[in-house]
């Protein structure tokens, strides 16, 4: 008998992702009434290319370049003891800094919310933005903390037994979102 869903299952292709990012960019501009003071901070690894794409989209719409940075939250996590020490990724804030700015954090998947909690702690060390918001490509539910995203590319109901893989061409050679019950090699 044929299974209802194949595994792994592709739930979004490159066009879907590109439309979702375009919509996110419009929503950010609409909500913030423009791009003034805006800084995008991607959370490595896949949040960083996503932040750059949103920045390019906003530049196309508004004609202004938005500063993009990268914020590695590893050292601020509360679950460090649960796994071997991870290699650190790049942290590079835009030269303008984040004081008094509107910071939109960008990540690929919102799940437990622990990464975002760590990101908020990390931001504290670097400055004091006036507003901090969150944009994610995928919200897969199962939050463990009272955290929500302001901008969501795609709501993806999942079971906790499943894994969600976001592939971004800058890092993975192609754009797609995959759900699987087993570990996939790639990410």
């Amino acid at each position: 008998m044929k299974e209802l869903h194949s595994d792994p299952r592709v739930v979004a292709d490159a066009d879907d992702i590109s439309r979702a990012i375009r919509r996110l960019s419009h929503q950010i501009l609409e909500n913030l009434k423009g791009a003034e003071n805006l800084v995008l901070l991607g959370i490595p690894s896949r949040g960083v290319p996503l932040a750059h794409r949103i920045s390019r989209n906003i530049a196309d719409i508004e004609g202004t370049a938005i500063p993009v940075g990268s914020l590695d939250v590893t050292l601020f996590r509360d679950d460090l003891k649960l796994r071997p020490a991870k290699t650190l990724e790049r942290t590079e804030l835009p030269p303008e800094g984040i004081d008094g700015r509107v910071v939109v954090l960008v990540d690929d998947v919102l799940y437990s919310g622990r990464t975002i909690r760590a990101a908020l702690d990390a931001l504290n060390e670097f400055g004091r933005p006036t507003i901090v918001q969150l944009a994610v490509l995928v919200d897969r539910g199962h939050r463990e903390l009272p955290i929500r995203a302001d901008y969501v590319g795609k709501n993806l109901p999942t079971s906790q037994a499943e894994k969600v893989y976001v592939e971004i061409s800058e890092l993975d050679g192609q754009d797609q979102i995959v759900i699987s019950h087993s570990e996939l090699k790639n990410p």
Partner: protein
Amino acid sequence: MKHLVSIADLSRDDAIKILDTAERLDALTEQGAKKLPTLRGRTVVNLFYEDSTRTRLSFELAAKRLSADVITFSAKGSSVSKGESLKDTALTLQAMGADAVVVRHNASGAAHQLAHTGWIDAGIINAGDGTHEHPTQALLDAYTLRDALTKDRGEALGAGLDGITVGIVGDVLHSRVARSNIRLLHKLGAHVVVIGPPTLMPVGIDKWPCEVRYDIDGALPSLDAIMMLRVQQERMNGSFFPSSEEYSRMFGLNRSRAARLPQHAIVLHPGPMNRGMEITAEVADSHRSVITQQVANGVTVRMAVLYLLVGGDSVD
């Protein structure tokens, strides 16, 4: 990786991972994150059986920047002076729940013994054991070399020290810094030239992964970096050279020798310096000298080691 006892325990990839982690930490500090919550609730014990200023302060600062609780224990003024053994001290630290023990001891092999006897579960970091090894000093030296000499080739991240020639000059015999450095720099692809009087060369040095020379002057033009070792009079119980004046004349780094180094070459010293003996004050304070950078990098590199050893779950 649970312990850091000897450079021999590290693969090239492990060593580069430590340097890369230090580089990331450096960037965090530079951008304003001076205090990181990473080791909150963990206890780091500095166990110092031998005098030290910079290594002890450096480890203490590194652990504090990562929010660990730090206890510093020096043998002077402790139960050690009442005759407590290393084993009993280790059992005490175990009972107190130490997560990492940074140990400096005058006996070669002390750190190895703590790491491998099962007296204590904590991660053991060797901060110098007798004349054996001082791995974090070698790592901070490698970091300093990579930072100063490979940046113009692009990002240092992921890089070794391939194609770089480093001279290590002086008291190789008593130097754990030299021992760790020769191993590590070779592992990272550098060519190491050790230079000093034959009386201060260890037996079997010809089997080490380095070139050996007994004169400094001929080597100078080929060096990208020169590391001056401290003459360790406290470990010398015989005559290894006729007089300090003669040592200084034969092997000391002075202005005229420094001028024969290539333009880009840098000068390192692990400290504490005997100014006027192995290095003149003028060279130590010159633009070539990266001695104060070494101290600053020491904190960052030790943060990296502490994070990698005790920051996560250390099952592997």
